[in-house]
């Protein structure tokens, strides 16, 4: 693993902004680091929509949301002094049921030494019913550090 390569697992929440701010504060203008912001897109299931047209509208919105979040978080990092050339952004579709799994696959494939993820803080009942991306990352990550920013 490369400790100077950091992966921020982003979503549209305030927690992701906090995670980016934290990374910005830690790294700042130091040379030799690379920060990648990854937004995993999960389109809603077709079952939730009465027709293909309304489903497509929602998927387009999701794509747009990913682009917006990535642009916003890049600005957060730049505002803390990280040079633009050291920041990459990536939007990709979830490969299966789990966003966490997609993030971990990406981390492994691209040799990131640190995963940074925001946590929204869910109740036990919510975690049982819906799961938690950050908890799964903490649980299943291997050969890397995980920073959980609350």
């Amino acid at each position, binding site marked *: 693993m490369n400790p100077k390569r950091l992966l921020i697992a982003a979503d549209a929440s305030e927690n992701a902004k906090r995670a980016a701010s934290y990374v910005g504060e830690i790294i700042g203008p130091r040379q030799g680091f690379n920060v990648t912001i990854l937004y995993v897109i999960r389109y809603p299931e077709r079952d939730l929509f009465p027709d293909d047209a309304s489903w497509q509208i929602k998927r387009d919105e999701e794509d747009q949301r990913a682009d917006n979040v990535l642009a916003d978080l890049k600005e957060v990092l730049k505002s803390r002094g990280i040079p633009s050339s050291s920041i990459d952004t990536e939007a990709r579709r979830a490969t299966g049921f789990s966003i966490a799994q997609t993030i971990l696959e990406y981390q492994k494939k691209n040799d990131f030494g640190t995963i940074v993820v925001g946590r929204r803080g869910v109740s036990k009942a919510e975690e049982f019913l819906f799961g*938690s991306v950050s908890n799964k990352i903490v649980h299943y990550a291997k050969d890397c550090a995980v920073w959980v920013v609350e």
Partner: protein
Amino acid sequence: MSKQVKELVRRLRPSLSLAEYGRLFTDTTAYMEISYGDVIEIDNHHYLVLRDEVERSFGIEDPKYWVKRCILLETGERRILKLVFHEKFMLKLGALEIPCYRSPEKEARILDLVRGDLRFMQGYSRFDKKGNVVRIIEIISGKRLDHAVFEIETNHRDYFYNHLPGILKKFMDSCRAIKFLHDHGEIHGDIRRDHLWIEHGTGRYRWIDFDYAYEFEENPFGLDIFGLGSLLIYLVGKQIFTMSNLESQGFSKEVAASISEEDFSLLYKNRIVNLKKLYPYIPKRLNLVLMHFSNKAEVFYETVDEFLQDLEPCIDEINPNYALQTPGGDNSFE
């Protein structure tokens, strides 16, 4: 129009006599307008509508206008027709509210997936003339599992040792049926006590109603697994226990006083999950499975497999002689 229906009924099912003859529908979009005496024509089959289905909850009947109980005129068989009704509503699960979507397409897909698998209700879907996906469901003759269990006339101890092992064996097969859905990327979506039925004659447990869909979450199977857990808690207890019914069920004030916050359901705050405090003969291992669904839980089941791995060894522990006494499992309901 009513003449047309009268002629159809006379030709196809002359033994039927109706109070009134309605209209023939080939487009089911306006399902509210379709009622008793009307005939729905789908794929060259004719379904005479008898009534709307109703859902009974807390003594209140809630009509489901998009679900029609029918007779297939060509054969005389009874069928349920589920017509297209898309809705989004907030499903209340204890203190949580979850956006829920009714999806005819999802149910049609699952009916295809489970064709011939009698752990599920059977049926198929066809398009009406307007392209609405109509689900044509075979009626299960039987009763709700929870009602059947509640009505077993014996005390809890006898139920626990002599009935529950067989019931749990069948229940585990129902859980494997849910795993089958999950393995194929589907969820049941509405695992409740009134959606698992026992078929008369065979004693087979069968799941019904698969049309609920949800926004995808990190753990897509959590809702189904929680539903299985709640069912298990009911089966082990033979009923639901709350603080308000303990006394009427003969439990002492000391037992009631021993119930603490962590003994209740993670979701339904008034339901007691720690049944060992009520029935100390419940083995620790089985009670631990129940406690995964309590406020005390720190680790949650993410897959049906994990749940079953914990549950399976509990059955023999309850009554190791059970299989010898009743080969083939529990036959109470056949």
